[in-house]
């Protein structure tokens, strides 16, 4: 059986989850199977230098565009699927993968499971474990092959990066598909970190939906100031416009690794955990004892967050003599 591991990279950087897709495929491959890495982008050299854990690499090389629209990625992947007849296509849960997975599943008619954490091979089918309801429920699913799976970043340890033999690399030209595509990239905006860079912050106080309203953020901000911490928010808080986008932690925000991460009213959806679970010290306050944030917290408390902020602020103020 062939496995296609979909990989990504842009701005001369191969995404780490690419190596996780190869590792996931490798973990399922048996004697006689083949793991084929698929890459679309400008950094063909980077892909060839990194994906040695695959048996073969198919590179759809772009020369102009740095970011590949998912539509084009999916179109090129379709051709590869037709030519290779794989038993399983592994797509990362990424901005690109979100569009590619169901597109491919529709056009092939194959089953698709998203948000996959574990995969077991059982003859001609798979048993997978996927997350639902913000990580509060795990679904064990049976998946007939061939199929498409969208894999959570971090679910598989990265395969060892290393070069792949030149004879095992097949290069195709992505430009015709890019030129003929209906979706054209017109701009990339990279944030200006002049004001705040959470990725280098040593202390972060993050507020989640539990903060309730915009006015209450000031309470958390005061606490952050007392702790010498940056204030941050989870996606719902930023989507409501209560904090600027640059202060968002998680999949569509920043990935942070501070010495202190104090999470106030953050439930800990998988997308949030992806951005902060590597922090040195995680303290979580949430009235829901089943909130997934407690799975990664070093210390957890289930008291009302406003009571805690008031009490903690009092003590810090007293301690500093103010």
């Amino acid at each position, binding site marked *: 059986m062939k496995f296609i591991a979909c990989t990504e990279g842009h701005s001369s950087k191969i995404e780490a989850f690419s190596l996780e897709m190869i590792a996931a495929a490798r973990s399922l491959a048996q004697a006689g199977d083949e793991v084929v890495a698929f890459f679309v982008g400008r950094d063909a050299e980077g892909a060839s230098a990194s994906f040695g854990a695959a048996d073969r690499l198919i590179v759809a090389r772009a020369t102009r565009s740095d970011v590949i*629209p998912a539509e084009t990625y999916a179109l090129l992947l379709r051709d590869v699927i037709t030519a290779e007849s794989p038993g399983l296509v592994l797509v990362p849960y990424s901005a690109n993968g*979100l*569009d590619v*997975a*169901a597109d491919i599943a*529709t056009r092939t*008619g*194959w*089953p*698709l*499971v*998203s948000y996959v954490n574990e995969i077991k091979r059982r003859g001609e089918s798979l048993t997978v474990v*996927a*997350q*639902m*309801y913000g*990580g*509060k*429920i*795990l*679904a*064990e699913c*049976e*998946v*007939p092959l061939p*199929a498409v799976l*969208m894999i959570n970043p971090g679910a598989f340890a990265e395969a060892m990066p290393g070069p792949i033999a030149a004879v095992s690399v097949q290069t195709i030209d992505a430009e015709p598909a890019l030129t003929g595509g*209906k*979706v054209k*990239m*017109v701009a*990339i*905006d*990279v*944030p200006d970190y002049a004001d705040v860079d959470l*990725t280098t912050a040593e202390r972060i106080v993050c507020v989640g*939906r539990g903060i309730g309203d915009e006015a209450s953020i000031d309470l958390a901000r005061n606490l952050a100031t007392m702790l010498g911490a940056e204030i941050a928010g989870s996606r*719902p808080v*930023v989507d409501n*416009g209560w904090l600027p986008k640059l202060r968002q932690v998680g*999949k*569509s925000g*920043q990935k942070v690794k501070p010495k*202190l991460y104090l999470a106030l009213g953050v*439930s800990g959806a998988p997308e949030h955990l992806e951005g902060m679970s590597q922090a040195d*010290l*995680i*303290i*979580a*306050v949430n009235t829901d004892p089943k909130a997934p944030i*407690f*799975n990664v*917290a070093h*210390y957890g*408390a289930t*008291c*009302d967050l406003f009571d*805690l902020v008031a009490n903690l602020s009092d*003590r*810090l103020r007293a301690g500093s003599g103010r």
Partner: protein
Amino acid sequence: MNILVILRMIPDSAGELQLAEDGRSIDREWLDFQLNDFDDHALEEAILLKEAGGAKVTAVAVGEGANRVLQMAAARGADEVVALQSEEDAMISSREIAASIAAMARAKSADLVLCGVQSSEDVFGQLAPYVGALLDWPHVSGTNRIVANGAVLRVTQERGAGVAVTYELATPAVLGVQTASKAPRYVSGSKLREASKTPIGRAMPESSGFERSAEIITLRLPVQGGSGENLGGNAETVADRLVTILAAKGLARN
């Protein structure tokens, strides 16, 4: 421009979820259902597009409480509201409903289909790429800004780490909204009462058209991985402990 916006009712995931007796679904009897957050943003984006350049917005709701949310959609500015029938007490699989949405997009001569980028029940795949691929229309997910200039859309997509990519594409198209250009508006009680007279259309579901799909065998609650220490629920005790912990780690402000 004709805009079709999809509103999925999902269990309130802030509430406690319990497994049903069959072990393959969640117990829905006592659950609160609410509009999928991302779909709320999709609705807002649809109304913003209507206000910016004129459009007819048709809101399609599916699931428990669909009528209630359609009245809200009408109060916010939707011109037509339709409830898509769904199996009672079943999760709303985007893979299952995609064919119905695609059929409605054709029937309503939609130029643009908007829905939330994800829902907590889309374990079998996301709605925007399913509908886009079924219609063979271009689709982009994770948008946080949509600007229409005639039939040309300029769409900004969040890529993580604060990176945003802007694309241009022509209608007809399908977009999976992450965040509306502005936060969803509130509607007053009087507007809601007024909108409660809006007639709600009905649509019957189509077959998904997929011959083979994955299937849920069992659901389970994740093992509470809590290797961490539980400081309890008393704010004063917790604050005392945290001050000690922070001081011991040199993390109190210096």
